Structure formats: structure tokens, C-alpha cells
């Protein structure tokens, strides 16, 4: 009996079929916004730099930075939906990588007002660029806005939860190492983008 029970899960491995779990609930734009950074490394790394930097701050600054970034994403996206989408906004994620990556790598703390202002500015640029790039694909703008800003907030929340759950020396080192990777990628991507113009 036990042996049969062990064989069944193995047998199921060979019967994989396409995922059936997601019916069409007309929430496509919510998920498109939520997962937008996962399919665009620039956006993911820009948001990750902000999220990781927030984990290195003390007191209420992590919350203020994450909320500021999510709010900035929301505001930037609304601006893009209203037609305010300058081409220079595409540099938002790269600038976020180039500014916040070194801050993470060097573990720099800023006053809470300055940190929040930086996060809001990065969010504005990132939200505006992301929405501007996908404008023709967005059928339900409200769902898109909810998804995109939720994704930004969730990334910050998860980053803070992970670093507080494992407040070890090596976690702090790992965050700084990732900051140096983000800086390196940001520098390279910026040069490639500048050459392509």
C-alpha cells in the first residue's frame, strides 16, 4: 500500500498537461501590470534596487521608501495614460539602477525625506515608462494601474520581510552584492541604450 502510494506521485510526473487553473476572469491587465517587471529586466532591477535599499534603512524609512515608490509608479502610470509620456522616461529604470545600485552596494543611509523623494522620483519615471511602453496593449487601465503599483509595493514588502526574517550578516552581504550586480548591469545597459540613440 505504502509502495503504491509512493509510485502514484512519480507516475503523475509523466502526465503533465498545460496548466488549467486559470480561467478567463478578465483580469488580464491586472496580471499584466503585476508581472510587467518579470518580463523586463530593466524594470525588475530598478524596482529591486529601491526595494533592497529600503531594507538597509532604519525606523520608518523602509515603509516610507516602499510606499513612495509604489505611489510614484501609480502617479507616473496615470500621467502616461493621460498622454504625458516623454521619451526620456525610458531612462527611469536605468537611472534607478545607477543611483540606487551603488547606494545598496555601499550601504548608504539618507534622511527619510531624501530617501522617500528619491523613491517617488524613481517610481514616477518607472511607472511612466512601463505604461508608456504598453499603452496600446492596455484595455482596462484601472486594472493595469492596480497591478503595476501592487507589484511595486509587493516587491518592497517581500524584500523587507526576507531581510527581517533572516537578519544575518550574510544576508546583509548578499544584499550589497546584489547591489553591485545591479549597478554593473545598469551601467552596461545605459551605455548600450545611449549608443542606440
Amino acid at each position, binding site marked *: 500500500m505504502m509502495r503504491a502510494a*509512493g509510485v502514484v506521485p*512519480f507516475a503523475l*510526473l*509523466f502526465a*503533465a*498537461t*498545460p*496548466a488549467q487553473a486559470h480561467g478567463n476572469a478578465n483580469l488580464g491587465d491586472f496580471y499584466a501590470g503585476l508581472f510587467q517587471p518579470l*518580463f*523586463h*529586466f*530593466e524594470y525588475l*532591477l530598478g524596482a529591486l534596487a529601491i526595494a533592497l535599499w529600503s531594507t538597509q534603512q532604519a525606523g520608518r524609512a523602509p515603509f516610507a521608501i516602499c510606499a513612495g515608490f509604489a505611489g510614484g509608479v501609480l502617479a507616473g502610470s496615470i500621467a502616461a495614460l493621460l498622454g504625458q509620456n516623454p521619451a526620456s522616461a525610458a531612462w527611469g529604470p536605468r537611472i534607478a539602477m545607477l543611483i540606487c545600485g551603488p547606494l545598496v*552596494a555601499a550601504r548608504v543611509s539618507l534622511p527619510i525625506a531624501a530617501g522617500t523623494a528619491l523613491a517617488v522620483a524613481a517610481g514616477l519615471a518607472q511607472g511612466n515608462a512601463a505604461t508608456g511602453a504598453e499603452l496600446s496593449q492596455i484595455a482596462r487601465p484601472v486594472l493595469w494601474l492596480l497591478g503595476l503599483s501592487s507589484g511595486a509595493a509587493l516587491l518592497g514588502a517581500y524584500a523587507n520581510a526576507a531581510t527581517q526574517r533572516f537578519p544575518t550578516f550574510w544576508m546583509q*552581504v548578499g544584499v*550589497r*552584492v546584489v*547591489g*553591485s*550586480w545591479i*549597478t*554593473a*548591469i545598469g*551601467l*552596461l*545597459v545605459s*551605455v*548600450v541604450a545611449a*549608443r542606440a540613440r
Partner: protein
Amino acid sequence: MRRGAHFVALALFFFAFAAQAHTEQSTGGGFLTGFLHPVTGVDHLLAMLAVGMWGAQLGMPAIWVLPVAFPLVMAIGGVLGIAGVPLPGAEPAIVLSVILLGAMIAFGRRPPLVLAAALVAFFAIFHGYAHGRELPNQANAVDFCAGFVLATGCIHLTGIGIGTVTKLPRGAQMLRAGGTAIALTGCLLAWRLAAG
């Protein structure tokens, strides 16, 4: 019974099917190409491993300063490569990095942190330059950059992991033997480079 279960589990690795759940929408061959660039080049791979191993051998704070410094300086080399700035002797310098970093581990050299970081940073420029020269031809530059930087970091972490053998009995000797193997492989690469 336990041995049988292990055998079945191992055997299953050889019967992997294509994943069915994910439709094909790529973040790119660019990422994979970039990720594989340092991994499949033996000179890059050994030098990156050596950076991690040497950091572990030097201990705190070099164990994390070197892997943080390397990608930053490597990116500067990458920028030179992308911009097409001529950097003579890049290939020999990369091979030299394998020999020198391997030798540092083999001989257990412990220079001051600034000197160790400067040495690693110097070679990082040439490694980054080689990656950068490959980049303009790639379909997706962002993914390619992310791929090779992440791969470089992962190899560093692997090197640090290998370096933790120093905690085992005779681990320091094992690590130095690893450094010797890297340096000798570097000599072989230099010989092949010289032979054309």
C-alpha cells in the same frame, strides 16, 4: 528499499520531458547567451572561481569585498568593450589573471586588502572588456548584460563555497591544491594562446 528509492530518483533525471506548463515567451536567448558566456569560457570561469576562493582564503572582509568590487569594475571594462575602445592585450591579460589568482591561492599570499582588491579590479576590466565586445551583436543587450553579470556573481559565490573547505581538516592544503590546479590550467591556456 532506500537504495532502490534513490536509484529511481536518480534514474528520473534521465527522463526529463519538455515543460508543458509554460508557453514559450522568452526573456531571451540574450539572457542565456550572456549567462553562458562566463560559464563556457574556461578562462573566465577559472578566474572568477579563483576570485571567490581567494576571498574565502583571505577571510573577512575580503570574502565579500572582492565579489562586490569585481562586477563594478568589470562593468567599466564592459563599457570600454561596448564603446569599441581598443584595449590591447585583453586575451593575454585574462589568461594572466587565471595564472596569478591561482598562484595567489596556491602560495597562500595574503596582501593588504587594498592591494588584493586592486589586483582583482585590474583583471576585472579585461574580463568585462571581453564580455562587452560580444555584446553589440546580441539581440537583447539588457538580458545579455544581466546574464553575464549574474553568472559572474554566481561563479564568485561558488568559489567562496569551495573556499569554505578551509574549515575541514587539511582544508587549507586542499584549497591551495585547487589554486595550483587553476594556475597550471592558466599556464596551459597561455601556451595554447602563444601557439595561436
